[in-house]
């Protein structure tokens, strides 16, 4: 499941989180006063043979979708971000075993920059909206039939 967007509330221990403010300086903020809103990861234009794997859709459905795409295309690209990396690998390996070795895999990893917005609880007094960036890992697996 997607991680719940935790309104940083009392359940979070009181260790101050370190923020990279837009100006580049680091600030220490009391987490109680802010609401954390995660923005969506950057979305690149999608080809027909791109599959973005997520953790909400049923695993079997995603596998079936890839299988169907492989009937029409010679290669497909499976992308997974963060928690979904595991699943992306799993899907690729399942595809390979079910094809009895006809398919080949080529995996690439990358880092994706994600943006979080911190909205102050009391917007009239606190200064600006803060934005912080963090990195997350991603995997891109090319599943293809090798040229004869």
């Amino acid at each position, binding site marked *: 499941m*997607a991680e*719940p*967007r935790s*309104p940083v*509330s009392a359940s979070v221990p009181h260790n101050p989180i370190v923020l990279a403010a*837009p100006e580049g300086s680091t600030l220490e903020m009391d987490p109680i006063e802010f609401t954390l*809103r*995660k*923005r*969506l990861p*950057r*979305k*690149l*234009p999608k080809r027909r043979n791109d599959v973005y794997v997520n953790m909400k859709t049923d695993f079997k459905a995603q596998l079936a979708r890839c299988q169907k795409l492989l009937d029409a295309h010679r290669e497909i690209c499976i992308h997974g971000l963060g928690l979904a990396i595991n699943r992306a690998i799993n899907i690729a390996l399942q595809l390979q075993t079910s094809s009895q070795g006809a398919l080949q895999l080529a995996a690439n990893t990358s880092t994706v*920059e994600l*943006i979080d*917005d911190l909205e102050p609880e*009391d*917007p*009239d*007094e*606190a*200064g*600006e*909206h803060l*934005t912080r*960036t963090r990195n997350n890992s991603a995997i891109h697996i090319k599943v293809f039939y090798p040229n004869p």
Partner: protein
Amino acid sequence: MPGAKERMREKKMKNQPRSVQYSSRGQGSQASGWVRGHQAEGHRYSQDLPKHITASFFAGARAAEVSVMLKAVSKPTGSCQVFTALPKHMRRRAMSHNTHRLPLRLRDAALRLAERSQRGPEKPPQAKSRSRRARRRHTHLLLEFNRRQRRSRWLETHIWHAKRFHMQNSWSYRLPHTPTAKSYRASYRAMDTHTLLQDLSYFCCLELQGPEEQILRALSQLTSKQTGPTFAASVCLSGARVGRLLLYRAGQYPHGALGPVEFLWRPRAPECTHRQLWIWIHPALKQDVLPELQAVCQCCESVCEVSASSSAAAVDELRNRKRKCTADAAELPAKRLLGDGTRAVGDPVRWESADTHITISDLTMEIVRFRLIGPLAHLVLTDTLHAANEEALRGVCVDADLHQQQRDVFTQLRGVCSTAELPAGCVLGLTVSDPRLTLPQRRGKTVPDLQHISTESSHARDLTLRGVPAHCSQSALWDTSVRDHVTDSRLSEQELNRVRSDVLVPGSAVCVSGVCAVPLLLLHQPGRVCGQERLRWGSGWDLLLPKGWAMAFWVPLVYRGVRVGGLHMSVKHAQFMAQPHFPHDYPDCPAGERCQSEQEAELLEKFKRRPPSKRTNYVKHGCVAPFRCPWQQLVDEWAELVELGGETQSRAGPVQFTVLRSVSVLRQLSAWCSSASAVTPAAAAALHQEQQGALLWVRLRLLGKGRPELHAAVCVPTTSDLQQLTDGQSSGPQEPRHPDPQPESEGSRSVVSHCSRRTLGWVQQGDFSLSSGRGEALAFISLSGLLQMMIQHQRSLVLLRNPSSLQYRYAHVYIDS
């Protein structure tokens, strides 16, 4: 139906002799006329026959009767066909078409009748109208259009819409509702993957001018910090962001809600405390908000502008139309109506106050507003708009440096992949050249360009991280004089076409010297911000233009492959974002109440249009309020129920219901809903005590089958229902059929415990959700009821039942905060 019967009789008796009565004149004792039918008490007809008859008088009367009867016999009644003279067994199909199927004696009459029906009914001679050519002449058309706008205002894109949409009258505007083409799914897809365009020019803009502290002090009475950011939120105050909030009557929070508004501050000018603020409101809200604003700003003196605006002049002309039409060729040419056409000449549009130095102006219809919804909205804009070159800027008084910076930001937008990536609510001012000059030859579709995305990625990263710099949100659109100048200096279509015809290569870009640049504002719409699912869905850009320029921007936007939506799509957009839609989903606001009454009348009329045997029997279905939801009664009954449940706390009496909008409470409830076991009775009781009479806006997702409808009941499941669900046996329990007519014992109909399951609330918007692939509903439920249910079952599961069905369906409750 006595009316219908009478009409039938009237039709039947149309050619019958009317004088079939004994005239009593000259015969003395004959008092009554004929009596129809057999008389029960043995009344005899022949009891008092006249003693003598005057022969000439009698014969005359009979002769008149005979002549009337002969006339009636010779002429068929009304639309009666000839073959109705035949008995039923002799009639044949298509007798009215083929006269040879009729017996010979009737053929002639039938032939005559057929000829007459081919000629059509004889119309009363009409006053000779002008020829079509004359009627379609430009000036005459304009006059005609202006006349038709007197009752309901038209948007500038009206003609375009009227050709493609079903139009309806709402809030004294003539607005597009749904396209005539089948396009519901296509419009959803456009919102999801490309862009949907809407004309929101009917939104009213109120302008406040004055010292910053005074404005803030006045407006702070209308808002509450508990519902989120106010007018004074620092990001909004600098003018870099658009703000959204809910207005309340002065100092009455949490009661007396007025409605949602959107506001935008003009960026500060150096060394000046004088500020300008635009408040955008829905037209249904204007009659409530404007007096309230005048009260808090103490602006009661209306300022009559001597410099007659163009709209006033146009109206003036409209008034004198008749006289002018009859006058000779010396008449002035008819003018296109711009701005608010229904406003009377003397109506004030400005109010100012001597104490607070605040001026309120009504800018209704002065500014055109388009909304683009969808992930590619920014690409459509960058394709359509081109920043003006230096020489065109002179008329608009824009700083060249600022223009350059704004232009840079605008080009950086090309590197952004989706509108949702930008920070919520950022504002960009821009000055562009006329988009008609770069109109493509044929309609295409904007697609993202990978090359742009890769080259501009570093700039785009800055843009997404920091947003548009605050000073770039300045625009000349804020100045009335510039707006008027730009409106007046628009190149007419006729001139533009003349220039186009002179271009050597057809379809190449047209360059016209000395054209005016157009200042505009781009406001980012954040889309769905609350909740955890489909975040930022439905984000887009709003485009603000000076009046008169709507069509000049509309057609180029449409040529970029966007789909156009009407009012129906606005409702659906709000529904997919799980947001309440104004005015329908604000039952505690005066505008919402009015809307509910209208809806009730409409639904009732629709219900009564059906024959009684085909109507849904709401009594049998146990549906208490199929047309209007009794929120107050619901809240009161739940309060009583909770009191009976144990806690004997004294209550002050019935409380006016409110909609819960406090952010902190909503967040708490949202957490409880995702893990209902966390609710403790003590905390729930405290919350109940604190928020008496509160309604809660919730999103319901069905677990299995079912498509919720308007006013479907949200009910509390029993323990056995939940047990059945865990066993996986059923898709929902059934409501036993209620007896009709109701037994006398149920005199006072309880809203909550009318059915076998207690009612929590009702659905406001419900449909099959194209995004989640199952039924989804947005409903108001009683807070006390929800808390009690969660304590009882430790789960946030409810039952949903449509008003026309006995089948309950399971649904999960989500509270987005």
